[in-house]
């Protein structure tokens, strides 16, 4: 069996499934997914009802700040959460329900149908095995091929993710590679079995920008090669703008806006999205005053009713405290937002929604006076 044969054994829709051709067929359907972790203070509701559909070959970007539940969502999809986690809802891969599957069954799906790229390549690779062994291991986990054939495939994969001298690198150990190289090895492992879905959780966060650009190139190459759909989780709105076909914005464990990249970046319909965009210093235009979101994200333990963004939202009305808004279609059926006042946001800019914070002038004047007396 040659390396090429490895790819095409018994895949239902053949290897030509993708090449980044987007089909409207859903490969991954997540509905009403919730994840809770019991703690001494009560149930930590890390994910409070996530719904999304990933279509063949598309890139879905998930953005949100730390603690918004974006990573926990994908761990739940992969069945990688600890046993103490309370998971409910449904995750279907090509119609097959993944929630409630045994580990043995899940192992048939993980790595073969859905694979994952984690943030830190140093902890996701095994330090005591060579990278060639680890890639070959991934190939042999799902295909009955000889070691030699698996290593051939490993060489091809390293070539694909643009690691120079791939053949020599097979015998290298993770610590001998730089951070960027390691992450490319992780990408090679993720695409080893030609998966239909790749979940990339902050794949470039720990890396410098020039290396980040190289990794995004490798990731694109991986996606084109396998034709896989991708869930790209990141807090970097720039990466999302460049890669994602559709964007899902998460806040306090729930999606608050979902739409095409253009919808979300140019015509957001949820105050939180406005806040995120207005907070970003921009490279492409002279500096304007930033519009930060006041306050900080809520604790997801014992959450009060109502919209969790209310305490930070300049548009909050009494209704917002009473009832949490559903994710509903806006003017466009594909563009959904969870905000009671979403219709009033048409044509607004972040500066219209948020006030630019000003330091307490009186306190500052006092401070200047007092410090001059002291000196």
């Amino acid at each position, binding site marked *: 069996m040659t390396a090429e044969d490895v790819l095409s054994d018994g895949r239902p829709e053949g290897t030509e499934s993708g090449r980044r051709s987007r089909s409207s067929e859903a490969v991954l359907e997540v509905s009403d997914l919730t994840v809770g972790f019991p703690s001494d203070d009560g149930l930590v509701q890390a994910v409070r009802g996530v719904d999304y559909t990933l279509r063949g070959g598309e890139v879905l970007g998930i953005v949100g700040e730390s603690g918004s539940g974006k990573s926990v969502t994908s761990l739940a999809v992969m069945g990688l959460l600890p046993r103490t986690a309370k998971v409910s809802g449904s995750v279907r891969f090509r119609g097959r329900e993944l929630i409630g599957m045994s580990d043995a069954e899940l192992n048939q799906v993980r790595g073969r149908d859905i694979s994952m790229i984690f943030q830190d390549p140093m902890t996701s690779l095994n330090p005591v095995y060579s990278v060639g062994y680890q890639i070959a291991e991934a190939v042999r986990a799902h295909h009955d091929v000889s070691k030699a054939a698996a290593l051939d495939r490993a060489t091809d994969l390293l070539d694909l993710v643009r690691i120079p001298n791939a053949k020599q690198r097979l015998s290298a150990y993770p610590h001998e590679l730089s951070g960027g190289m390691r992450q490319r090895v992780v990408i090679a492992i993720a695409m080893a079995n030609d998966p239909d879905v790749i979940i990339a959780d902050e794949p470039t966060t720990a890396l410098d920008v*020039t290396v980040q650009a190289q990794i995004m190139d490798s990731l694109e190459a991986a996606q084109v090669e396998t034709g896989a759909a991708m869930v790209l989780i990141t807090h*970097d*709105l720039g990466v999302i703008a460049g890669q994602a076909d559709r964007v899902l914005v998460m806040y306090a464990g729930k999606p608050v806006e979902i739409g095409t*990249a253009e919808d979300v970046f140019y015509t957001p319909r949820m105050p939180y999205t406005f806040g995120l965009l207005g*907070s970003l210093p921009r490279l492409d235009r002279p500096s304007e005053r930033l519009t930060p979101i006041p306050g*900080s994200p809520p604790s997801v333990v014992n959450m009060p009713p109502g919209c969790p963004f209310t305490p930070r939202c300049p548009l909050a009305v009494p209704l917002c405290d009473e009832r949490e808004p559903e994710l509903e279609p806006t003017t466009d059926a594909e563009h959904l937002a969870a905000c009671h006042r979403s219709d009033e946001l048409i044509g607004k800019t972040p500066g219209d929604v948020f006030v630019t914070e000003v330091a307490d002038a009186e*306190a500052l004047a006092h401070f200047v006076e007092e*410090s001059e007396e*002291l000196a």
Partner: protein
Amino acid sequence: MSAPAVEKGDGSAPAREPILSARNLVKHFPVRSSGLIRRQVGDIHAVCDVSFDLLEGETLGLVGESGCGKSTTARLVLNLIKRTSGEVFYGGRDVSALSPKQMRTLRRDLQIVFQDPYASLDPRMPVNEIVAEPLRIHDMFDKGGRELVRDLLRTVGLKPEHGNRFPHEFSGGQRQRIGVARALALRPKVLVLDEPVSALDVSIQAGVLNLLDELQTELGLSYLFVSHDLSVVRHTADRIAVMYLGRIVETGPAAALFERPGHPYTQALISAIPLPDPRKERARERITVVGDLPSPADPPSGCRFRTRCPKFAAELGEGERKRCVEDNPQLVDRGQGHPVACHYAEQKVLI
């Protein structure tokens, strides 16, 4: 002013006096062998011949990727680590030649805000005490320091009632504000900001940036702003110095540097930053560098960027490359309107 002038080369900078100047700063860290007798086996060339002027009331951004020596430079400027050679002038005096006692007086004027708001505040001290500590050290607290601390906390956007709380009771953004308040307590003239917002989420980061901006205007502060994030530096800095492997490779006014970068590294850096604008981002020209940062223990000869330089790899002929290998390019104006350390500097419009 006893600091010899360096060529500013931008022409547009207002004729303000430099408040802080670095001249030919060099820092080597020893590399020691493992084993019982830890012989020195080499040097990490962390900072190599770095010179710059910080003008009064301006923000100078020092940018580069991890390992480029930007934080080491910031610490050298404050004399927090000993320099290998070179001078730092503040108010006409060479800072690095001062005795510890003289240095302490100077610390009133030169303060620093650190990157990690979790590590830079003493977890066992209430916030009031953290902010009051510099005043106590300089024997200024008894003359009304309590009031000053209250006003300072209000100024940075914290409630004075929360002064008795401990750092762990605050969020990352609030802690960074405490760090800013502490740095301001002595009314310094220069603030060194070492990655002040890197540990914060974007929505929180914006608030701290706005605060720093406002404090600068109101208090007439000069900032040395160290960051790896080009977008943040573009937003805050008046002038920018780009560092690579211990050297400044390009410096100039923020707008000019971003609109017409001349050094291949600056160009690669700018084009590697994804823009949060789908249409613009997908239509951009990309300049990618290959490989990873070489070891600072054994930097490449000549131009330190040549091993990763897209221009060196694709555009230059054999004879031209020889110059990059043998000859370290000086940081001078090569017709770009600002100094660039590349023999073959060429402007490119990337945004």
